[in-house]
């Protein structure tokens, strides 16, 4: 259906196309409603939910303010446990590290479990160029890999697809008899991916949390594919954003109470793998490589207000709660991270010049802030990014090393718009002028054609009703009643 990849720059068009797709909007509505119900039920059973959120936010705020020290502690302890820690300034460097590891070991058959960081750096495409494209093993990720698409949700990558569409895809790509039974489709995935797991020589995963105190990485999942990926191949490569580090092993408890409940409404996902160095004696891989990824994060750390963006634990709750995401889904954002978190994270990772539209994709209703398990003040950050986008300010982001610092386009306000605001300001500064203007407007709105406004206002009206003035102003009624 899509011919070119969507980008944030074409957000308005992407959104309109999504809204016109009844299958998509129906699937999204069902899914986000279900998620919201499950989450509400799960957190309703936790008496100290708010204290947990406060605690998690405090742990993250502390850690990010001392991130350099915690990264060094994490690296020292992971290394001591036998892991090899690599550092990547940007996507290209991270992909090159993984590619070189695979090349040096002659690894040809790669498997991968779900990871947003590897989506962010487009690792699959980079490895495919080298003839080593990993097989995605999470069911949702496998589906979209078969379809040649990208994830539209952080937790449920194929949320935009109906079971009928997935059934048709399996008929097309796997040659199986038609079925839209999730049970049968999942069984097919189990059978097919078994063969890949059995033959795999290198496994790639993400990291949900890295513990500074012990050098442990934690990977959380439901399907068992991440356990397969981090157990069966001889080499395990874990890609971890530098913001994923937390101070203490015991802090995992706090985050494990918050993340599954916020994400899927489970009290715990089926599996958590806590890996401290390689574990050949325990039947695991011979080598564990951890790739610490910056890719714009160190610049976000430097911005005191925006720093909290990095507290995100990728639960997806803000997507499910967002009326914009609920209506258009993830692809319209044209970014790996969609929804409210994507609207603040993407412009900071990519720069406002290319993703400056995203902070405007919000009604600022605040639902995202209410559900965020680490209390990120997303609406305030959206407003600040809007301000910076309009003012043409630089955001703390550089797309790649060596590139000149980028700024968003300076003030887009046109002369006519500026004149309009000046007139508005002049009219509203004087009660007499305001009365006169509203009297004219009341007369004017009686004319049938008058409400179809002109020029820029017409665009504003394409999705909104202009407010109607009351036949008798409140001011007059107040005076009348007081008499």
């Amino acid at each position, binding site marked *: 259906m899509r011919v070119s990849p969507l980008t944030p720059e074409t957000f308005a068009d992407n959104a309109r196309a999504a809204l016109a797709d009844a299958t998509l909007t129906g*699937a999204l509505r*069902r*899914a986000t409603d279900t998620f919201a119900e499950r989450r509400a039920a799960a957190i309703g059973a936790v008496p100290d939910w708010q204290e947990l959120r406060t*605690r998690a936010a*405090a*742990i993250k*705020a*502390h850690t990010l*303010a*001392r*991130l*350099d020290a915690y*990264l060094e502690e994490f690296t020292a302890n992971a290394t001591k446990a036998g892991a090899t820690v*690599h*550092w990547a*300034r940007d996507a290209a460097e991270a992909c090159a590290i993984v590619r070189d590891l695979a090349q040096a070991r002659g690894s040809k058959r790669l498997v991968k479990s779900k990871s947003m960081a590897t989506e962010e750096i487009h690792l699959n495409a980079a490895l495919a160029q080298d003839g080593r494209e990993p097989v995605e093993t999470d069911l*949702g990720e496998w*589906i979209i890999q078969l379809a040649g698409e990208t994830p539209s949700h952080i937790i*449920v*990558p194929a*949320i935009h697809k109906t*079971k009928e569409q997935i059934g048709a895809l399996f008929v097309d790509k796997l040659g199986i008899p038609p079925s839209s039974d999730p*049970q049968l*489709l*999942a069984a097919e*995935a*189990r059978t097919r991916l*078994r063969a890949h797991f*059995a033959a795999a020589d290198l496994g790639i995963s993400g990291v949900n949390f890295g513990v500074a*105190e*012990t050098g*442990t990485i934690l990977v959380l999942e*439901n*399907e*068992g594919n991440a356990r*397969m990926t981090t*157990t*069966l191949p001889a080499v395990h490569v874990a890609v971890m954003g530098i913001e994923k580090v937390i101070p*203490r*092993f*015991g802090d*995992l408890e706090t985050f*494990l109470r918050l993340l599954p409940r916020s994400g899927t409404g489970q009290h*715990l996902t089926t*599996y*958590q793998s*806590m890996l*401290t*160095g390689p*574990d050949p*004696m*325990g*039947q*695991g891989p011979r080598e564990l490589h951890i790739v610490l990824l*910056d890719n714009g994060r*160190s*610049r976000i750390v*430097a*911005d*005191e207000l925006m720093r909290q963006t990095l507290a995100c634990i990728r639960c997806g709750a803000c997507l499910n709660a967002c009326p914009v995401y609920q209506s258009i889904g993830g692809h319209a954002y044209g970014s790996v991270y969609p929804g409210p978190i994507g609207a603040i994270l993407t412009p900071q990772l990519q720069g406002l010049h290319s993703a400056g539209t995203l902070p405007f994709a919000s009604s600022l209703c605040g639902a995202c802030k209410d559900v965020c398990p680490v209390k990120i003040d997303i609406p305030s950050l959206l407003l600040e990014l809007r301000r910076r986008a309009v003012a043409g300010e630089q955001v703390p982001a550089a797309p790649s090393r060596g590139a000149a610092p980028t700024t968003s386009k300076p003030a887009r306000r046109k002369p006519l718009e500026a004149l309009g605001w000046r007139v508005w300001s002049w009219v509203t500064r004087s009660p007499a002028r305001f009365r006169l203007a509203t009297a004219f407007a009341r007369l004017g709105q009686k004319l049938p054609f008058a409400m179809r406004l002109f020029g820029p206002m017409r665009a504003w009206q394409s999705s909104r009703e202009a407010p109607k003035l009351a036949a008798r102003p409140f001011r007059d009624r107040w005076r009348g009643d007081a008499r």
Partner: protein
Amino acid sequence: MNARAAILGAVRDGLRGASVPPLPPPVEPPAPLAVAERIARFTAVQQKLGGVVEAVADRRAACARVGLLLAQKGAAVVAASDAPLLAGLGDYVPADVALLPPDAPRERLLQADIGVTGAQWGIAETGTLVLASADERHRLASLLPALHVVVLPVRALLGTLGEAFAALQRDGAPAARTITFVSGPSRTADIELTLVVGVHGPKALHVLLVRDDG
């Protein structure tokens, strides 16, 4: 400048003069639950997750029950870990069933119908089995077969997640290089959020709570 120095330098420069909010103190583990309460909760949560929990008297009864399960399920190949509780399992395995030790070839282990392992701890609150690799080689037997049978001493059943994290740290380090939490059979809801039990990991989980593991 290498990447490590560049990233750490950028972070350090960016944080120069930043105020550091305090790290909250560790959570105090709650008062332990009575053993009957732990068993009841663990059983209830496991059932909700699609697991089966059964009580057995001692290690011999546990092995006998496993042997019976193998016969009932018609297993051909069984992967067992080297858990001390399972030391006598061989005596109870039906004659036509191949019993694979943890160091059996990977190709053979991939063919196992049933995996039998111990667990180092259980967590009642979340219906979780904690597999720590230091004392038992159970990573493959607990993962590859469609049915995972676990023997867990009642003595090792903890009340809460907090108790588990306290137990899991020895002298600051984690209790094992690989610690796996298992709460029920594998599952997915990736297709229209419809729950499907049994994806890549085991499709079923059977827990035998051993009262007397001496």
